[in-house]
C-alpha cells in the first residue's frame, strides 16, 4: 500500500499542530479565580484584574463571582469533590484550618517568592492563627479586616456625649442616643449584626476563648455568657438595639443601611465598609475601637487567598503569579485605600505613612491601631462548624427570644461535641 503525503496535507497538519500548541500555551497561561465580592469591592477587584491582564507577560485570570462567602464556599467544596476545582479562591479565616486539615489546600512554601511576601504578621497565617507560623503556608491574606465601631458624629455631638470606651459606657451612650416615638423607636442607639464574629470579639474582650488550648470548644465559658448577655440586655432590657433581622450578610447590610439612613447612631461592623460608609454618609463618621470589657482584643475577619491542590500545576503557577502581584505594594495600597480593608504588607503601610495618608484619614489610622489588639483564632478544624451550625443560629435565637444565656451556651457546647 502506497501512502503519499501531499503538500496540502503537510501545510494543514502544520497549521493544526501550531493551533494546538497555541491552544496549549493559552491554556497554560490562565487560571480560574472564584470570588465573593459585590458592590464597591467587586469594582476594585475588577479594576485590578484588568490592570493585571494588560501586561502581556501575565497569565489570564478568569474571575467569576460565586455569591457570598458561604455560597462560594459551598460551590468550591462541591467543585473539589467533583474534581473541577478552580485554581484559586478566597475563603473566610475560620474555614482555613478545616480546608487545610482536609488536605485540599496547596502548600505554598515552595512557590517562588513565598518567603518574601512581607506580610503583616497579625493579618497573615503566622499571626492570625495560634501556631500558624509553625504550619505549612496555605493561605495568603487578601481582604483582611477587624470589627470596629462606627459613630454618627452629628448625633453624638447633639447628645453631648463622648465615644463609649467600655460596655457600661456603651449602654449609657446607646440609651442617650435612642429616640423613641410612642411605642416605636425612631433611632436605635446601638446596632450590631447578631453574628458569630462580633460575639467572638465580645468574648475576647471579656477575657475568654471560644476554643481552649487543648482544642475543646468552650464557647468562652463565663466570658461567652457575659458577651451574649450584653446583647440581650441592650435588646430587651434597655431596648436600644434592634432585634436581629436576618442571618448571614443580610444582617450586615441592614445594619449598614440603618446607620447610613440615621436609624442607628452607633454601629459595630467591619472595617471593610469604612470607605463605603464614609462616602455615603451625610454626617461625620467617626470610628473607634469596640467598647471593651476587661481587655482590648479583636479577632480578624475577611478572607485569605488559597490555591486548591486539585487544580492543574500550570493553573496553580498562574494563580500564584496573580496572588504575588496582588500583594505587591501598589496593589495592596490601592485595594486597601479603595475599600477599607487593612493593608496586608508592612511595605504598603510604611508607604502610606510616608505619603501622609493616615494623617489625612484618621479613621484608617484608628483601624490600623487595632493590629496591636489582634486575638488569633485557634487552628481548629471545627471552628467553621461551630460558627455556621451552632453559634449563628444560637445567637439569633437567644437574642431574639431572650433565652437564658448560660443555658443556651451550655446547649451549644453539647452540640459542639457531637460528631
Amino acid at each position, binding site marked *: 500500500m502506497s501512502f503519499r503525503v501531499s503538500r496540502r496535507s503537510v501545510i494543514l497538519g502544520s497549521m493544526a499542530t501550531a493551533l494546538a500548541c497555541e491552544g496549549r500555551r493559552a491554556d497554560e497561561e490562565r487560571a480560574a479565580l472564584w470570588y465573593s465580592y459585590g458592590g464597591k469591592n467587586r469594582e476594585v477587584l475588577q479594576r485590578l484584574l484588568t490592570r493585571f491582564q494588560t501586561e502581556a507577560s501575565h497569565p489570564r485570570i478568569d474571575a467569576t463571582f460565586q455569591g457570598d462567602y458561604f455560597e462560594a464556599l459551598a460551590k468550591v467544596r462541591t467543585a473539589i*469533590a467533583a474534581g473541577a476545582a478552580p485554581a484559586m479562591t478566597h475563603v473566610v479565616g475560620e474555614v482555613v484550618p478545616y480546608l487545610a486539615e482536609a488536605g485540599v489546600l496547596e502548600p505554598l512554601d515552595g512557590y517562588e517568592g513565598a518567603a518574601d511576601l512581607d506580610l503583616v504578621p497579625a493579618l497573615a497565617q503566622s499571626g492570625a492563627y495560634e501556631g500558624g507560623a509553625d504550619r505549612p503556608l496555605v493561605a495568603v491574606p487578601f481582604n483582611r479586616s477587624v470589627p470596629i465601631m462606627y459613630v454618627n458624629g452629628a448625633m453624638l455631638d447633639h447628645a453631648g456625649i463622648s465615644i463609649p470606651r467600655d460596655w457600661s459606657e456603651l449602654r449609657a451612650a446607646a440609651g442617650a442616643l435612642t429616640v423613641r416615638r410612642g411605642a416605636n423607636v425612631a433611632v436605635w442607639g446601638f446596632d450590631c449584626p447578631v453574628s458569630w464574629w462580633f460575639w467572638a470579639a465580645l468574648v475576647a474582650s471579656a477575657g475568654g476563648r471560644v476554643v481552649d488550648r487543648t482544642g475543646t470548644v468552650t464557647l468562652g465559658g463565663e466570658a461567652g455568657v457575659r458577651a451574649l448577655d450584653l446583647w440581650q440586655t441592650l435588646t430587651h432590657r434597655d431596648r436600644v438595639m434592634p432585634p436581629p433581622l436576618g442571618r448571614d450578610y443580610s444582617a450586615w447590610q441592614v445594619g449598614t443601611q440603618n446607620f447610613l439612613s440615621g436609624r442607628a447612631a452607633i454601629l459595630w461592623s467591619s472595617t471593610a465598609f469604612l470607605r463605603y460608609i464614609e462616602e455615603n454618609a451625610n454626617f461625620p463618621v467617626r470610628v473607634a475601637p469596640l467598647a471593651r470589657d476587661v481587655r482590648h482584643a479583636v479577632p480578624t475577619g475577611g478572607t485569605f487567598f488559597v490555591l486548591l491542590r486539585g487544580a492543574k500545576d500550570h493553573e496553580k503557577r498562574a494563580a500564584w503569579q496573580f496572588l504575588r502581584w496582588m500583594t505587591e505594594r501598589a496593589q495592596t495600597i490601592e485595594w486597601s485605600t479603595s475599600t477599607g480593608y487593612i493593608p496586608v504588607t508592612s511595605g504598603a503601610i510604611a508607604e502610606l505613612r510616608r505619603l501622609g495618608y493616615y494623617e489625612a484619614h484618621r479613621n484608617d489610622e484608628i483601624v490600623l491601631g487595632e493590629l496591636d489588639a489582634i486575638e488569633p483564632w485557634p487552628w481548629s478544624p471545627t471552628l467553621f*462548624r461551630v460558627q455556621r451550625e451552632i453559634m449563628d443560629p444560637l445567637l439569633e435565637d437567644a437574642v431574639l427570644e431572650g433565652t437564658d444565656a448560660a443555658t443556651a451556651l451550655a446547649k451549644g457546647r453539647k452540640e459542639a461535641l457531637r460528631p
Partner: protein
Amino acid sequence: MKPARPYEPYLLLAPTLALLTLFFIVPFFVAAKESLFTWDLLTPRTYVGLSNYEILWERGELWRIFRNTLTYSAVVVTGAIVLGLALALLLDRKGLLAAFVRGAIFSAYVVSWVAVALLFMWLLDGEAGLVTRLAMAMGLPKKNWLGDVDLALYTLAVVSIWKIAGYAMIVFLAGLQDIPPVLYEAAALDGAGPIMRFRNVTWPALGPSAAFVATSSLILSFQAFDVVRIMTQGGPVHATEFFVYAIYEQIFLNLRVGRASALTLVFGVVVFSLTALELRLFRRREVA
C-alpha cells in the same frame, strides 16, 4: 383492552421508568445509604448507623421542619383556593376591563420567584417598607413582617398565595365556564338565591378544579425554596425552615451530607404518604 403483544405496554412505559429510575429511585437509595454516614464531601465517610436521624430527632429539627412545612402548605393551599375562587367569581364576566384585570392578576404567576421575593422584601421592610409605612399611617403598630418569629411563616405564605392566586383563578374560571347555564336557571326557578346557587351548583361542579388547585399548590408549597432563601434564610430562629431549604442548608452550608440525606429520606416518606392519601381520597370520591 388487551395488547397485541404482551411486552408492548412495558415498551411504552420504559422511557418514563428509565427516567424515574435515574433521577428519583436511584438517588433515593443513594440518599438512604448516605444517611447512615457522616461525610462532608472532602474527608472520608464514617459509618454512624442511625445517628443522623437520632440527632435530627433529639434536636427537634425533624418535628420543627415537618410542622413548618405542613403549616405553610396548609395556609398556601387554603389561601390559593379561597382567593383563586373569589377572583374567578368576580372576574367571570365579559369585557375588556375584566380581561385586563384577569391578565394582570395572572401575570404574577409567570414572574420569577426571585423577582417576587425581592419585591416583597422591599414592600415588607420593617422600617421603610411600603406596607409598614401604610400600616403606621393608619395608626397600626409597626410590624417586623419577616423578622418576627410568629409572623414570618405566614408572611411567606401570603407572598406565595399572591403569586399563585392568578393560576388558581384561571383554573377556576375554566371550571366555571364549563357549568351549563341551565343549571343556574333551574335553580333560580326553584327559588335558590345566590348563596344557595353557589353552594348547590357552583361548588359541587368545581370539585375537580378545586382538587387540581389543591394538588398543584400543595406540590408548589412543598418545593418552596427561592422565596425562603432570599427573604428569610430559614429564620428568624428557624421559623421558616421548610424541608427543601433545610436539606440545602445541611448539605451546602453545614457540610452535612448524612443529615441532609436523612432529611431527604424523611421528606420522601412524607411526600409519598401525602400522595397516597390524596389518591385514596380521589378514588373514593370517584367511586361515590
